[in-house]
């Protein structure tokens, strides 16, 4: 079976204008329930603990999903972080290579 996905609205920029169509990843509900628990339970606790231990700004801890000691990370480090996590599961790949593979698998 062959499939093709046509994409012609590729944009490298975030779309912050709420008046335009939203582009959304819908998470599987099981994962979404865990992530909601992270947002509502873990993040507030981390904000309080990190403020006390490391002097982190609680508003920053609350604002970003990914934080280390309550602080957001340098964005460039995220590809390395993701690669390391996938490596822990035996899937050793550079994230930029993985993104390319993702496109091609999607196309077919």
């Amino acid at each position, binding site marked *: 079976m062959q499939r093709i996905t046509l994409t012609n*609205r590729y944009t490298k920029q975030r779309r912050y204008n709420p008046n335009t169509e939203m582009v959304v*990843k819908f998470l599987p509900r099981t994962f979404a329930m*865990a992530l909601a*628990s992270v947002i509502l339970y*873990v993040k507030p606790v*981390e904000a309080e603990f990190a403020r006390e231990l490391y002097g982190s700004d609680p508003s920053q801890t609350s604002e970003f*999903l990914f934080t280390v000691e309550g602080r957001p990370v340098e964005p460039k480090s995220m590809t390395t972080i993701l690669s390391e996590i996938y490596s822990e599961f035996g*899937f050793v790949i550079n994230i930029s290579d993985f993104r390319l593979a993702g496109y091609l698998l999607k196309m077919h």
Partner: protein
Amino acid sequence: MHCLDVIDHSRVKEPERLSQLFLNSHVTSNFSSIQDIKRPAKHCIPEHHGNNVEWVNREYNILKVHTGPQGLGRVEVSHTIMSSVYQRLMLNIQEHMVNLGVPIMPESEFNGLRDGLSCLTPRQGLSVFNRREWPVNFVRCNTAREFRANFVRKATKLYKFCMAAIHLCGGPAPRGTEEAVTRLLNSETELMRNILFMKGTLGVQNGYAMMLRYVN
């Protein structure tokens, strides 16, 4: 790929049906110009001089990515592999939640979450619309410094698993630099937060147009 479980099937099946009916190179249709674009695009992938992937089988569902500085390494990628990694990430997320002593909310509570999709007020988000007493009590009951440092350390590991799982969901992902600043709250400068409660699940919005499109 995982989003297929939660969105209406017509959104997935209908484009596929139309593609097979009109766009496949084997069928006769009036969309020959698109077929002409698709046909060479498909065949040139293995021969292209700058190509760094190779298909493993004729079903085109497994490929090998050429990796490393010289492109000599090979890493196999398929939906099966990604699904396997995703399932193990889910297990690790659940284990970490247990280790942290944090419950995963039941479906009934999840279904009752509220969100304001049109709210652009700074500092607003899911945690504001759905405040819980549980974190306040947890902080009050766990005062040991070592426990708190351990909690923060484990939380970061948990976030890593979550980011890796998000990266796998919903088709091609944005760049790591964009994912690193996934916002839970609206901001002064960038308005809309990235994580929203919608359509009975969480949606991660970051304007990356190669993902699925949600139209209000």
